[in-house]
């Protein structure tokens, strides 16, 4: 290293330091607009496709369990029973947001589009149990009992109908046959 370079290095160090300090001084005296957002009071406007907490609109949910199957971290748990009209009835639908990693796969896969993201993201809670969001508020046992009752009623009705049918077929040429003729 020659003397010229040596002195050049020193000069460069001094000049660049001075330049940098001038810039920081300008900001230090008057930074213009502060970039800090004072969080609890000021909040950022969420983006259009912001992926916050999950929300399931249970009125539209078909209990297809696609979301449960696709979830990489197994944070969704679902229980459903078959109702009287052959459709599934949700008994419980829980999302553990403590585990959720907001990948959005469940939302993409949901056939009736009942599952979606909200803009919520604050999950400071006192207990871990609070992080499990429950979307079916009724008691699971009650729903099961009700559905079982409905199913039983429907089955009884069907049985009665079947019995009537059987009676009909057993005694042909009576009233029902006449009515059929009328039609």
């Amino acid at each position, binding site marked *: 290293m020659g003397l010229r370079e040596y002195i050049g*290095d*020193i000069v460069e160090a001094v000049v660049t*330091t001075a330049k*940098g*300090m001038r*810039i*920081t*001084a300008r*900001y*230090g*005296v008057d*930074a*213009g*607009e*502060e*970039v*800090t957002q*004072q969080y609890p009071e000021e909040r950022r406007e969420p983006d259009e496709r912001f992926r916050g907490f999950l929300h399931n609109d249970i009125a539209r949910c078909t209990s297809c369990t696609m979301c449960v199957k696709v979830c990489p971290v197994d944070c969704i748990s679902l229980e459903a029973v078959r109702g009287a009209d052959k459709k599934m009835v949700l008994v419980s639908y829980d999302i553990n947001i403590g585990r959720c990693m907001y990948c959005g796969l469940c939302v993409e896969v949901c056939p009736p589009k009942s599952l979606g993201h909200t803009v919520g993201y604050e999950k400071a809670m006192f207990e871990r149990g609070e992080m499990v969001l429950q979307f079916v508020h009724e008691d699971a046992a009650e729903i099961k009992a009700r559905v079982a009752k409905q199913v039983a009623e429907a089955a009884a009705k069907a049985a009665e109908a079947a019995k009537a049918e059987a009676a009909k077929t057993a005694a042909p040429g009576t009233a029902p046959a006449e009515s059929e003729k009328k039609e």
Partner: protein
Amino acid sequence: MEALALKLMNAVPALAGVPLWVMTLLVMVVVAVILLVFALTFGGVGSYVLRKVAGDIQARIGPNRVGPYGILQFLADGVKLIMKEDIIPAKADRFLFILAPYLVFVGAFAAFVVIPFGVGLIASDLNIGVYYVMAVTSLVVIGILMAGWASNNKWALLGGMRAAAQIVSYEIPVGMALMPAVLIAGSLSMQDIVRSQGGLLGLFGWNVFHNPFTFFSFFLYFTAAQAESNQTPFDLPEAESELVSGYNVEYSGIRFAFFFLSEFADMFIVAALAAACFLGGWHVPFLRAEALPGIWGNLLSLGVFLAKALGIVLLMMWVRWTLPRLRVDQLMRMSWKYMVPLTFVNLLGVSLWLLLFRGKGIPQLIASVF
């Protein structure tokens, strides 16, 4: 100290019966406590100012929640550190781990003894003042290396080794950059060095304006001191982004608070030395502080000295938030290839100047013309 004790005993009749050595010890303890309180306050307020300055420079706000403008933030931090669980890693060297923070703090705090706060305000005017500061602040290295080793953590050890290499390297330029002040005063005592800068309106007697070499000397000292007190362009021992936080990774609670405080104490020591050796120490511009009646002279000179020292601290913070961190090899190259030769050349220049102009500086030469 003994003189002060004697004075007190003569002034207050109730103390006449107390033996002199007890009184002296008492005075020493009181002075030490005052200095300790000063160091702690500086550490607290300094951390607040540091964060505010950083906020301003980076267009942020900085602490603003605790108290008006966040001024009580340091109290909250202090309370937090005191109440935190004190963790000692299972495989740490317990004895050294516990000892290290105190050693570091003692190293930084002991230097306060020779800081000339005012005309008569100095804990002890040692006749080897400058040498004492250089020697005692080197104790910090041992503490840091000890902390790094005792933590039994690779980052801590690396940080400790870096700190040792860095502080030992920069000790030389710091010492050599302070030499011009010693040469001009002809003494190593801090008070003598400050007194030698009086006269000439209390402003042009400063060593910075003495001659071109002392002017450069000040900046060389400032740079080297920044490195010696491990501040940002040279904060390799801490280096959050590469070493997590260096030698103090494993420390928490009150022990971490000691490292933190000693860092700030170090910062003040370095700034106070610069003020005393180059910026006229406690000399009040346009006024003769020594000539004023005792108490006013002391108070005024204390204020001026603190203003100078804290101004330099502010300058250090400014540099700190401007420059990015150096690499290890760049740091070493800067010390051995640039700082050391330059400070030696400077020392030679000052010596020649003193020889040629019979110890007179440029302002004195100009003044002697009229």
